């Protein structure tokens, strides 16, 4: 059986780091805070690997099915019989996998930051925040209670807010962290209401019981959830859709994605950790956690997930083709890849061969974490060297940054889906799942995969080839061992992670899923990917005017995508023009002219009398009294005559 203490230590060690560095860091650990944070996380990582090994190979399987184990459960608050908020740990294939992914990527980022953030004034604070984030994310993935997940979900939001706004003297960083916080908070309201609906009907907050109740049609909870409806849609579907909105906010799905590109204002290693590999997949994880309910009880909510994912994947890929800030390109590519994971869940069914999408989605989450973290950390090395995020300041860097160049190339090949790199395998499974269950989504995905290869290699050639490098004098080189080691380790992961037989470990129903390799099927995506790469090479390998000509010939489309389809502008328009004008201004007008006017008119009679004692007080109390009386009479009329 699993050892609960060891598992509990996995999130608690980073928390200890946060408390220690947060409280005493500036005084006592000014220079050693990085080492302390990294060591604690190293222990966490070892424990996570140990736990995952134990779960997958020793005790997790009973009769060929991976079980959902709950090695630790502490009832924190008992509402009533059956409804309680627990703090617990759930161990199943996806949480075991996520423990490894989160700790490993976080460890890489910790090590990398030793070099990248060296000399920063608030070094201990940075490591304290990283610890807080890692704790929240680990707590989120092991949550055994839907409420526990919500608490950690909010904590993840808070720590992301802190890290995006880390350079708090930069106005753009402050604006970005605010935007991220507000957009995701809006989505979280959906999540909270979704939780309330689901738990209200199922009568529990515990994940295992909730899933069991809402997937078996004979239970009372299922019946009440399926019967209650609002605007013709059942409460169950509403609940799930609202929970998905929460997930879509965190995972930057269209149209709630606008915060992600701006979030790139944080330090680059943070972007690698939070906005690429871990936090943004929380939404995917949430859908996966509740997957049985989605798949068995509400196909409508699941297809919502599928279409939102597919649209996000395509739109983000289009936008990524025209951006010039390298971190923004990577941000949009993240959104696009998460779209892949979402629609893979959306086209999946529960159990057996049809559950391929679920496995594929989790597989892609795993491989994506590797190569996306690698891309961001590589981009960090480039930015560290050139002190700019803009493509036009780069070019020809392959001679100056050889290790970064090779590892970045491996990551690009992986994300473009070129065999035998990791991305190829997971993407093939996703495409296969889509092909079998939803042709529309399959075609969107196929086009997206070609676009992905194109924009990634556009980025690669612009950074490392194109024009000759303009590097001025004194440079420190690639940034030392601390920065290079994570790159190499992640590159190895991005190269070979695809050979893991993922279906043996993670599947929708816990049974072993054989994933076959179909050679004919792979021809189309790989060919498209290669085509994308060659077009990018033809356009960007050397300095020429083809890109400009190309942009000019498609000027309308180019402009639209360059401005990210004007989605930010639409939001601004809706809030500034429509909400302020249609609601704010009229409300102010009514307040000023009608409410005040009414009160003034009725108050005028008494005003004459008040003239006498005007010197003593402002003359408003009579108006208050009139207002009071009018309200009482109004309410009385309302309730006696109309609202019986």
């Amino acid at each position, binding site marked *: 059986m699993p050892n609960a203490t060891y598992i509990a230590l996995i999130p608690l060690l980073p928390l200890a780091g946060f408390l220690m560095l947060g409280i005493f860091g500036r005084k006592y650990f000014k220079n050693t805070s990085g080492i302390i944070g990294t060591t604690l996380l190293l222990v966490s990582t070892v424990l996570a690997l140990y736990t995952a090994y134990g779960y997958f190979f020793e005790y997790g399987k009973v009769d060929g099915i991976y079980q959902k184990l709950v090695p630790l459960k502490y009832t*924190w*608050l*008992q*509402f009533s019989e059956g409804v309680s*908020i627990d703090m617990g740990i759930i161990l199943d294939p996806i949480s075991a996998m996520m423990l490894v992914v989160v700790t490993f990527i976080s460890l890489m980022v910790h090590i990398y930051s030793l070099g990248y953030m060296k000399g920063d004034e608030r070094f201990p604070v940075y490591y304290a925040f990283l610890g807080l984030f890692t704790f929240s994310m680990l707590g989120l993935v092991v949550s055994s209670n839907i409420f526990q997940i919500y*608490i950690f979900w*909010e*904590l993840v939001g*808070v720590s992301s807010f802190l890290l995006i706004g880390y350079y*708090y*003297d930069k106005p753009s960083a*402050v604006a970005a962290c605010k935007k991220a916080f*507000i957009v995701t*908070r*809006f989505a979280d*309201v959906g999540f*909270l*209401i979704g939780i*309330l*609906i689901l738990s*209200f009907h199922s009568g529990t907050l515990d994940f295992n019981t909730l899933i069991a109740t809402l997937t078996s049609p004979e239970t009372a909870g299922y019946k009440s959830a399926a019967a209650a409806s*609002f605007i013709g849609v059942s409460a169950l579907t509403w609940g799930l859709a609202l929970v998905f909105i929460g997930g879509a906010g965190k995972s930057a799905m269209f149209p709630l994605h606008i915060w992600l590109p701006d979030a790139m204002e944080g330090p680059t290693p943070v972007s690698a950790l939070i906005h690429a590999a871990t936090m943004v997949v929380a939404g995917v994880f949430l859908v996966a956690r509740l997957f049985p309910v989605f798949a068995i009880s509400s196909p409508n909510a699941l297809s919502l997930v599928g279409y939102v994912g597919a649209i996000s994947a395509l739109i983000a890929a289009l936008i990524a083709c025209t951006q010039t800030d390298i971190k923004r390109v990577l941000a949009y590519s993240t959104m696009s890849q998460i779209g892949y994971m979402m629609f893979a869940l959306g086209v999946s069914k529960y159990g057996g061969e049809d559950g391929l999408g679920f496995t594929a989605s989790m597989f892609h989450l795993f491989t994506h974490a590797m190569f996306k973290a690698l891309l961001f950390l590589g981009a960090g090395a480039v930015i560290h060297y050139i002190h700019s995020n803009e493509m036009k300041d780069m070019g020809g860097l392959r001679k100056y940054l050889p290790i970064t160049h090779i590892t970045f190339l491996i990551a690009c090949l992986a994300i473009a889906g070129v065999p035998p790199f990791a991305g190829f395998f997971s993407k093939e499974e996703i495409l296969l799942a889509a092909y079998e269950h939803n042709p529309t989504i399959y075609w969107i995905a196929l086009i997206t995969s070609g676009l992905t290869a194109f924009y990634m290699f556009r980025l690669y050639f612009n950074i490392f080839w194109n024009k000759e490098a303009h590097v001025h004098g004194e440079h420190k080189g690639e940034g030392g061992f601390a920065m290079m080691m994570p790159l190499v380790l992640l590159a190895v992961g991005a190269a070979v992670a695809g050979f893991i037989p993922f279906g043996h470990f993670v599947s929708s129903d816990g049974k072993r899923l054989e994933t076959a390799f179909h050679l004919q099927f792979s021809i189309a995506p790989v060919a498209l990917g290669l085509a994308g790469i060659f077009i990018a090479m033809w356009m960007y390998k050397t300095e020429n005017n083809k890109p400009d000509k190309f942009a000019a010939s498609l000027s309308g489309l180019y402009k639209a995508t360059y401005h990210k389809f004007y989605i930010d502008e639409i939001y601004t328009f809706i809030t500034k023009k429509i909400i302020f004008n249609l609601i704010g201004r009229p*409300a102010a007008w009514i307040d000023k002219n009608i409410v005040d006017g009414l009160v003034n008119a009725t108050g005028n009679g008494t005003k004459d009398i008040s003239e006498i004692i005007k010197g*003593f*007080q*402002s003359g*408003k*109390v009579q*108006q*208050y*009294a009139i*207002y*009071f*009386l009018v*309200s*009482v009479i109004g*309410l*009385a009329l309302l*309730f*006696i005559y109309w*609202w019986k």
Partner: protein
Amino acid sequence: MNDFLTLMKPELVITGIIFLLLFIKLGKGLKNETMLLVIQVLLLLNFLAGFFFNAEGTLFDGMYLTTNMIVLQKNILSLGVYLISLLFADWFKKSEHMPEFFMLMLSALLGMFFLISSGNLLMFFLALELSTIPVAAMANFDLDKKRSSEAAMKMILSSAFSSGILLFGISLIYGATGTISFAELPQQLNGSPLQILALIFLFSAFAFKLSIVPFHLWTADVYEGSPMAVTSFLSVISKGAVAFIFMATLYKVFQPMHAIWYNLVMILSIATMIIGNLFALRQQNIKRFLAFSSIAQVGFILLGISSNSIQGTTSVVYFILIYVFSNLAAFGVAAAIAAKAGRENIDDYKGLYQTNPFLSWVLALALFSLAGIPPTAGFFGKLFLLTAGASKGSYLFIIIAALNMIISLYYYLRVIRSVFMDKNDEPLDKIKIEPSAKLGLMICAAGIVLVGLLSWIYDYIQNLV
């Protein structure tokens, strides 16, 4: 006799303290500083005494009743008064008539105790008056400021008006049912138009005291003009006491008319949250800001009340406990700054963190709690109110409440941003905080963190219902 002593113990203790203060004042008197210390110790003893020798029962033919829940509610109010005596030490020490101030405050508290314990409309009315009139006198305590007198005048006039309507409502109820006893009323209520009218009259008196929209107009003027100690007393202690009795009346007495008052509570809750928030958005003065945001908070309390269940009672009492800590902490910080630097505008708080980190952190904690951000207690408080409200199944109501939580988040964070992020070349000087105020702020901060994390508190309250 024995019954009388144990059941009425809280009231007797307070009366004893009032007389003690009176004798000290009539005698030689003490130096202000010693006096304040004596008062603080007495109030602490009063709070601690609330935990011993408690009993449940009724007195005077049901005119007065007490239960363990009521004792808990009185303890919460006593705690609040003790905190006020700590937090506003600066202002008290300067005041010439400090003992009188506390006599008035304790008289008001006595009124509130009787209010919560009342089992009869007559008792209820007397107690309500006793809890109001001394506060009007307290509002006048900045003797050299015209605005303070104005606030007192406005308060006494408006509450006289509200009392008039309340008396009218009580007489209608007596006319319609022939009784004014809380125990007998429910059998007589049937929802006839006359009774609805009486309910609304009664309701308006509660709404006036709780500053529920549209009966809130007096709030801003009175809160702004009064001394900060009075403002915090009004917005925390008064509101807490009235919310307790309001809930008890609706749940126990007007239970037969539940369908009617549910709608009443719902529309007024929505109006209160929205209007309170919209006004709080524009405020520049910290006192007005806290006043309007406390109006919005009352909207949430109504949401909890609307659930008409055990969970409703529990969540409201729990929320008010948290609200005592959070709101008093915010007022305490504002008072410390106003007393030493004479500034009350939010703009003056820019860059406060550079010079006064302790005050900044306490303020941030308090505002986070008021905004309902985890892991502060305020988050759990709001959450239980929402969950209680959601049990009635009116999703639209819950959605509006949740959206209002976001709006409030914006203005609370605005203050925090001023304090922590905005640069200011001339921030306020380092403020020396009175030791007792510092103790009060620390108690509040500890309360804000612990009440949320210690889950047995919620369980304890739930078991009392």
